[in-house]
């Protein structure tokens, strides 16, 4: 009885450790910086099987536009939610969606997720 218990504990520890390693190894993700176009700050995000870049830095207090591009996106990332803006929309499988942010809203950290919550991105207004 003790032998299976020991093996069971060893396997469990190994799996939990592996899962943590897996979760932390790519949590850094890709980063990006917002660009200026005709006096408007543009934050470009590609949505397919997740969001890219995952962390974007932008200037605070500037009227901005989040430009989300989909190309053959049928997964959850097409169903975009930005809680701070009370924004929810199912994006077209292929196309570009522009979400405007007023200068008052462009403060702090803005979180964007897919409607099921497993994909997310972050805009840091600094």
């Amino acid at each position, binding site marked *: 009885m003790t032998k*299976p218990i020991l093996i069971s504990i060893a396997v469990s520890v190994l799996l939990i450790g592996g899962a943590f390693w897996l979760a932390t190894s790519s949590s850094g993700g890709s980063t990006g910086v917002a660009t200026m176009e005709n006096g408007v700050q543009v934050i470009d995000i590609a949505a397919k*099987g997740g969001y890219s870049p995952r962390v974007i830095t932008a200037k605070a207090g500037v009227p901005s536009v989040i430009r989300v591009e989909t190309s053959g996106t049928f997964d959850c990332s097409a169903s975009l939610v930005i809680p701070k803006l009370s924004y929810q929309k199912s994006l077209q499988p292929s196309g570009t969606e522009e979400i405007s942010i007023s200068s008052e809203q462009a403060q702090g950290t803005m979180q964007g997720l897919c409607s099921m919550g497993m994909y*997310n991105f972050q805009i840091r207004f600094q």
Partner: protein
Amino acid sequence: MHCNACILMTESELTDVPYVTNAKSSLTTHSVEVTGMFGDKTPEAIAEELTKVLQPRGYALSVEKIQKNAEWGDFVYALPIALVFIVGFAMLQKAGLANLITSSNVSYGTAFIIGLIASVSSCLAIVGGLVLSLSASSAKEGGTWRTQTLFHVGRLGGFFILGGAIGLIGSSFQVGLTVNVVLGIVVGLVMFILGVNLLDVFHFTKRLQLSTPSWLSRRVVRGSRHDHYFAPLLVGIGTFVLPCGFTQSMQLYALNTGSFMHGAIVMFVFALGTFPVLALLSFGSLNIAHKPWKGIFFKTAGIIVIALALFNLANALATAGIISPLFSI
């Protein structure tokens, strides 16, 4: 009973009873097998009579074991197996399955492939988790293949009819953010309760389940017993509005088709693509429910369902903006 001398003692005491011809005690199972001429007495009455014989020695007999054995030993196998599945699921998400879809046009073939991918993707956490928890619970309660079949008929039929409906009216069934979050939380909680029930170690959730005004757990899980046709069908149809990203984008596509037949077929083919994995989950658990190692299966399923329930709950709360996202794939 905890000594070998007790075995001999109980056996000799019992065989001294005139109508008992043989008694065999076991230390490991804490039971005694009694044979003899009992006439038309019920097993309970016999146990009561024999208890009187053994009472001076400090023993009591009952027909069934009073203390239900939780069989903790099953966890030795159930925990690593469940963890393998959970880690496998996480790795599948990391693998970027969504990138396998390269076409931006939806043909019926693509809809089927999207369905196949959806059934092993994040949708598995919510739809598959719900199917596993309901079918394993139903199998545990003695459900038949009929309950499972009705669920799948409801799902396929519901996707066809509702897909056609949104194609025709062109106004989406798409639920609002609040409804989405509430649905996610409700499904997460139902899954959590069913998962804990599957573990069969805590008995408070059994009471919780009965007192919850949840038509879902009460009717679907126990539905088979009363030959309930309606509830599994309804849950199958209800999966149309479950928060699953793939389903939502297919609905958006069906919406834009502007025709009943086109929308209906696209949604039906998509549901058909998800069918193999979901059928494996539901009919698989029904099959295993009659195997000798079913205890391990139910505990494994319980752990997986609880993990998926927590995943869904955390995601629903993150979507509501209440907590920051815990999982990032």
